[in-house]
Every structure is written in C-alpha cells, then in structure tokens.
C-alpha cells in the first residue's frame, strides 16, 4: 500500500518520492502484467511502460479514485492494447497464449504444484475474463475496485467473474481428463 503522503509529495514534484512510489507498486504492476500476458519478458516490458506512464501522469491522479485502482487501470489498459497489437510480434490470439516452459525461473519453482494448470487455464481465458480474474485473485480487488479499475458496471464485473470461474472450472476439468494437454 502506498502512503497517501508519498503520493502527494510525488505529485508536488518530489522526484525521490515519485521513484519511491514506483518502487512500492512495481511488484503489483509486474504481477498483473505477468498473469495477463503469460510470460516474463512481455511482463517486464509492459511493466516498464506502465511505470513510465505512471511517472509521467502522476499529477493527473485524483484522490477520488483509489491509487491502486488507478495504477491497475493503466497496467491493464496497456496489456489490453498489447493483446490487440501483436500482428508483427507474436500470435497472441486470446485462446492461443502459450506460457513459455523453458528457462522460466517462476515455472521451475511452481512445477510441482497445480498452479501450472491454473495458470495455463487463465491464459486461455478471453481477455476480459482473464483481467477480472487477475484483479480479483492477484490484486485481491473487490467488485467495486475491479469496476473502478476497468471502468465497468458492477454487475458486468460480477458476470465476467462468474463466467470466468465457470470457464476455468471447465478448462481444469479438461486438464484432469488430459483433454487439453493431450
């Protein structure tokens, strides 16, 4: 949690405070990017872009919004734009995201647990479903906070979240049967 005083100091032009704000949020930014994009390198690139944008736009943040939802809105928007723009980079159809399986430190640490399947299932969700799941479980946001971050009506958030979990259940059930991985 970033201290409000630190945010105010950053907005007032205190560069050290602003850098400290970025340090406080970088892990949150990276986690969202990582689970939305599904790989470390893209997550790093997008996190950098998001932090730079936050650095540039810090003065435009208004207290009527929570700082963490403002930050997550920026990150998720950049990620969503990244989904759209993959023509010349890699094919990132929303049902065709592949989490890299080689030379991935996080994956080596998680191989023994079921989270690999969960991550795989998350990566196969449509963008909007994946986004609400990430905000709900990775950022521990409430319905309201997700709605604010994504600029969505509350009922839409609930609807997406419920459908996303149902879809994940279906995908994980297929994994248990071995239908997806083959």
């Amino acid at each position: 949690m970033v201290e409000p005083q630190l945010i105010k100091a950053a907005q007032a032009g205190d560069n050290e405070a602003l850098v400290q704000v970025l340090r406080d949020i970088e892990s949150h930014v990276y986690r969202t990017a990582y689970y939305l994009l599904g790989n470390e390198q893209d997550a790093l690139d997008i996190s950098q872009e998001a932090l730079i944008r936050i650095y540039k736009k810090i003065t435009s943040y208004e207290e009527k919004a929570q700082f963490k939802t403002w930050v997550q809105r920026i990150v998720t928007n950049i990620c969503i734009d990244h989904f759209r723009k993959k023509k010349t980079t890699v094919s990132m159809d929303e049902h065709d995201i592949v989490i890299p399986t080689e030379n991935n430190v996080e994956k080596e640490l998680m191989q023994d647990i079921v989270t690999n399947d969960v991550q795989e299932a998350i990566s196969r969700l449509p963008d909007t479903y994946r986004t609400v799941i990430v905000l709900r479980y990775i950022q521990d946001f409430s319905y309201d906070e997700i709605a604010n971050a994504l600029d969505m009506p509350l009922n839409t958030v609930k609807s997406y979240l419920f459908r996303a979990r149902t879809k994940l259940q279906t995908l994980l059930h297929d994994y248990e049967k071995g239908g997806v991985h083959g």
Partner: protein
Amino acid sequence: MKCQEVVELMQRNVDNDLTTQEYSEMMKHIQQCSQCADMLQRLNRLSNDLETLPKVEPPGSIVDMILPQLQDMAGEEKPEEVNLTSTTSTHHKHNKKAKNKKKFSARKWMAVAGGMAATIWISIIALDWNELDHSINDQVQEEYQSEISESSSADKMHQSNSVNDTQDEVETGKEEQTQPVEKSEMPEDNARSMQQSEVINKDEVSMEFAESTTSDEQVEGEIEAEVERNPETQNENSPAEDENSRQLSQPIDKENSGSEQPEVESFIFENDVSEQEESFAPSEPEVLPAPEDKSEVEASDDVYGNEQYVVTIEQQNEQQRLVISMVQNEYNEADTLSWKDGVITTVQWLDEARVSYHVLYNEQLTIYEYNVIEKTEVEGPS
C-alpha cells in the same frame, strides 16, 4: 430454491459477498442437492487455487531498469515545461538579438539624427550669416551714408575715397576675414536671434532623436517602404512572425514591460530579414496534421492529434509504439499499438475517431485505421 440461483450464491460465496441469510439458504439447498454440492466443492477448490497463485516478483527491480529514463525525464521536467523552456529560451535568444539590433539601430538613428541636426544647424547658421552679412552691409552703408550726409560740406573727393575705401574694407571683410571680428561686433539683435536659432535647432535635434528612438511612426514608415520594395520578403516572414507572435507574445510582454517591443520587432524586420528568419524559425505546434516527411515520424515523441486525442510515436527497446491518448482523461490511459519490427511512417487523422497510420515492414507498406472510440483496427485502403 432453484439450482441456477444457488450457483450464483456459490459464486458470490467465494467472493465473501453473501449475507448470513443467503449463506443459510445456499447451504440448505446444498444439503439436498448432490450435484450442487459437487459444484460448490469444485468452485471452492478453484477459488483456493486462484488465491494461492504465487505472488511472482520481477527478476530485478524494474524501477532500477528504467531509472536512467526517469532521470532523463526528470532532467527535462514535464514535456509541457520542456516546451515552455525551449520556447522561452528561443525567445531569449531572439530578444537578445533584438536588443542588439535595437542598440545598433539606435546608434544608427542617433548618427542620422545628429547628422540631420548638424546639417540643419549649419544651414541655419549659414542662413544667419548671410542675413548677418546683409545686415552688416546695410548697417555699414547706412552709417556711411549718414556720415556722408553729415559731412556733406567736406571734401567730396575725400569723402568718395573714404566711402570707396570703406566699401572696399567692408567688401574685403565680407569676402575674407572677419567673421570672428564681425561676430564679436555682432549687433545684439542678431546675436540674440543666433542664440534662439541654436536653441531651436537643439530642440529640433533632441526631438529628432526622440522620434527616432521611441516613435513607431517613422520606423513603421520605413518598414512599409521596405515591405513595398520586397513583397516576397513580407510573404515569407509574415507566417513566421504570426506563428511566433502567437506563441511568444505573452512572455515577451511580461519580460519587456511591453513598451519597446513593437519597435524591436520592427527593427528586426527592417534591418535583417535573414536573421529574423533564423531566430523566428517556426516551432512545431503541439497538435500537428499528419506529416508527409518520414523523418518527422521517426523522430521520438512525435505528436499528432485532433481536438480530443493525441497520438505519440515512442521508440523503446527497438519497438515503435503508437500511443493514442485522450486529451482530457481522468485516468490518462491510452491505447498503445506496438510494432516490434515495423516502422511507422505516416500518421493521419481521418476524422475525429479514426486515425490512419502506415507501417513499413519487410519493405511492404501496410495502412491501418484505428478507431479510438470503438477500439478496433482494420487494414485500411492502400
């Protein structure tokens, strides 16, 4: 309670969104419906798995990775301030030149005014001397005539010789000598008129100088004449002058208290057109139409916008990004269209919502149209 209603309660349950009564109703149904009980179990397990997803950390500090960029940005301050600073510095440069020009021009006008005053003074003096000579001649002639008349009974030959001698002396004095002598013997009226002439001339000189340094009328007259002589020059410089006057007029007014600025501008316009063009080189406006020149696009932080959206081309890690953001936006989020290998060559707003841009990739040019409202993109017509 129907199973479908219970499913929604189960979903809300994993988000801790149920009231006590709702929870009781759900559990009551679960105890009676094995299918819903299985579903609840799977849902709780999924939610538990999701909640226990590892809180991944970046391999290193991302802030440290971008710190040089942040420091660069901090050095440049905010983009708006950078623009302001550069504008101000341009203005200072221009103003310094203008001041130098003004000093040079003032000296020039001082010299011209001094020369004109001296000419007028000399001509008046010459005129006065002519008048003085005439008056002296008249006076001498009158004195001699009176002497002649008084000594009418004297020797007429002597008188005529005297008169002739005296006339000779007067003529000699007139031709050769005697300005100092005559000046010293100047009648009071003539001396007074001379002094008055000097005073008048000094006033004229000072007025002439004052006009040359502070009045716009004379300078503007010169400028108009200059402009008439060089209509092409006028055409070439007017847009630049207009552009800069739009951007710079306020700081100039603030810093120079306004009184002399028009004169400074006029002097520059009059004296050195080429230098004015250099110092008044039109700066890039913040909102631009699509450039025709590829080099303009390749420069970093190019900005193209309409009234509501601004498009910025950013270069980062060998990747070009077309960042489309709203001018007024609570969250300041933006649409980012990234191109790793392609080069964005042209950006153009087709209307208020659609922006077209060209991407050169593998020597093939593709045109895309992005709709900022619908957030959709299509390959546009070539």
